[in-house]
C-alpha cells in the first residue's frame, strides 16, 4: 500500500486582525496514522482544525485532503471525513432521532443499525432532545454520529474534555475499536496527553504559532528518552506565562 498523504497542510497561516495564531505551518498525515496536534490553550489548534475541514479559510496557504484543496471542495471531501467537535454542535432542541435522520440523509454509506446499537449501548433514547443528554452521553453521541458515516478520515477536537473517567473509557473503547476495524486516519487535538500517548503514532506541537515539533512518537521518545508529557512541557514552557 502506497503511503499517501491523506492530509497535507501546506504553509498555512491564520491571522485574526493583528493576531497571527498560525504562522506558515506545514505537515502531512499519512493514511492510517493517528496524529496528535498538541498545544497550550489559545495556541491556534482549533483554528487549524477548522482549516483542515474547510470550515475556515486560511489567511494564506492551503490544506489538501485526499489530494484536493479542502476549502474549494469541502462538500465532496467531507463525505469521506467525519468531525467530532469539542462540544456537540447539534441544535439542542432537536431530538436524537432527528439528528440521526439528518446525518443519514447526508451520507449515502450510513450505518443505521450500528449507530442504533451504539446509542442503545450509551443509553441514549431516540426521543430525547440533545439538550437533555448528559455531557458524557453527548460526547459519545457525537462520536457515534461521526463513526456512522464510515469515514476514511476522522478529525477530533479535544473529544474527552470535561468527561468523567467512565465516559472517557467508553469513548476510547469506541475510538480504538474504530481504529482496529477500519484503520481510519485520525487527527486529534487534546489536553489528555497521558491518555493519548499510547494511541498517537505521530505528534505535532504548536507553540508560538509554529509547529515546534512534528515527529513519530516512538522516534521522539527513543531520542529524547522522555514521556510525551515531559516533551510537551519542555517545548511549551517558553516564557513561563500562562495563556
Amino acid at each position, binding site marked *: 500500500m502506497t503511503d499517501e498523504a491523506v492530509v497535507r497542510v501546506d504553509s498555512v497561516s491564520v491571522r485574526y486582525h493583528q493576531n497571527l495564531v498560525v504562522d506558515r505551518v506545514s505537515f502531512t498525515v499519512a493514511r492510517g496514522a493517528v496524529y496528535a496536534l498538541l498545544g497550550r490553550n489559545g495556541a491556534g489548534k482549533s483554528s487549524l482544525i477548522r482549516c483542515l475541514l474547510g470550515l475556515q479559510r486560511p489567511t494564506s496557504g492551503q490544506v489538501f485532503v485526499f489530494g484536493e484543496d479542502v476549502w474549494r471542495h469541502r462538500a465532496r471531501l467531507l463525505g469521506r471525513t467525519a468531525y467530532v467537535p469539542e462540544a456537540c454542535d447539534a441544535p439542542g432542541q432537536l431530538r436524537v432521532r432527528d439528528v440521526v435522520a439528518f446525518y443519514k440523509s447526508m451520507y449515502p454509506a450510513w450505518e443505521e443499525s450500528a449507530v442504533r446499537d451504539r446509542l442503545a449501548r450509551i443509553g441514549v433514547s431516540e426521543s430525547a432532545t440533545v439538550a437533555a443528554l448528559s455531557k458524557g452521553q453527548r460526547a459519545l453521541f457525537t462520536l457515534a454520529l461521526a463513526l456512522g458515516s464510515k469515514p476514511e478520515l476522522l478529525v477530533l477536537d479535544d473529544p474527552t474534555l470535561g468527561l468523567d473517567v467512565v465516559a472517557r473509557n467508553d469513548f*476510547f473503547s469506541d475510538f480504538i475499536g474504530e481504529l482496529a476495524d477500519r484503520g481510519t486516519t485520525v487527527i486529534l487535538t487534546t489536553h489528555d496527553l497521558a491518555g493519548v500517548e499510547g*494511541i*498517537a503514532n505521530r505528534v505535532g506541537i504548536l507553540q508560538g504559532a509554529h509547529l515546534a515539533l512534528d515527529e513519530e512518537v516512538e522516534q521522539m521518545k527513543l531520542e529524547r528518552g522522555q*514521556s510525551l508529557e515531559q516533551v510537551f512541557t519542555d517545548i511549551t514552557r517558553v516564557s513561563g506565562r500562562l495563556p
Partner: protein
Amino acid sequence: MPTPRKDAWSDRIPVQPSDPRPIWSQIEEGLRRLLASSALAPGDPVPSVRELATDLRVNPATVSKAYQRLVGAGLLEVRRGDGTYVSATPPAVRKSEQTRLIRQAAMNFASLAITHGAELKTARESLEQAWEELSSNRRGDGR
C-alpha cells in the same frame, strides 16, 4: 455469586505509554513473560488486536505489530477465522540462534547492572531468583 471480574489484560501486560520503550516492545515483552511463566499455555487464545488495544488503550496497529513479531518468532499462531493462539508447538529455534539471543539478553542485563553499580554477586542472585520464580509458576499451578 458475584460475577468474576474478567482478568484485565492491562494488569497482566503492564504497558506504560510514558515509558521511553516502544509500546510494541512493551507488549511483546509482556506477552513473552506471560508465556515464560506459563500464565499462557500453548494453545491458549490470546486477545484479539481490538480487545487488547482497547484494554491497554493503545493504537491497534501497535498491538498488531507486537503480534506480528511474535507470530514471526513462532510464539503465536493465527488460525484463520478463529483468532490468534499461543503456538501449540514451541518454535524450533536453532541452537546457534538460541545462544545468540541469550547472549544478547545477558549482555543487556550485565550492562544495566554494571552501569547501576551492582556487583556480579548481586546480579547472579537476582538472575537465580527470577529463574526460580518463573519456573515455580510453570511447575506449581499445574495449568
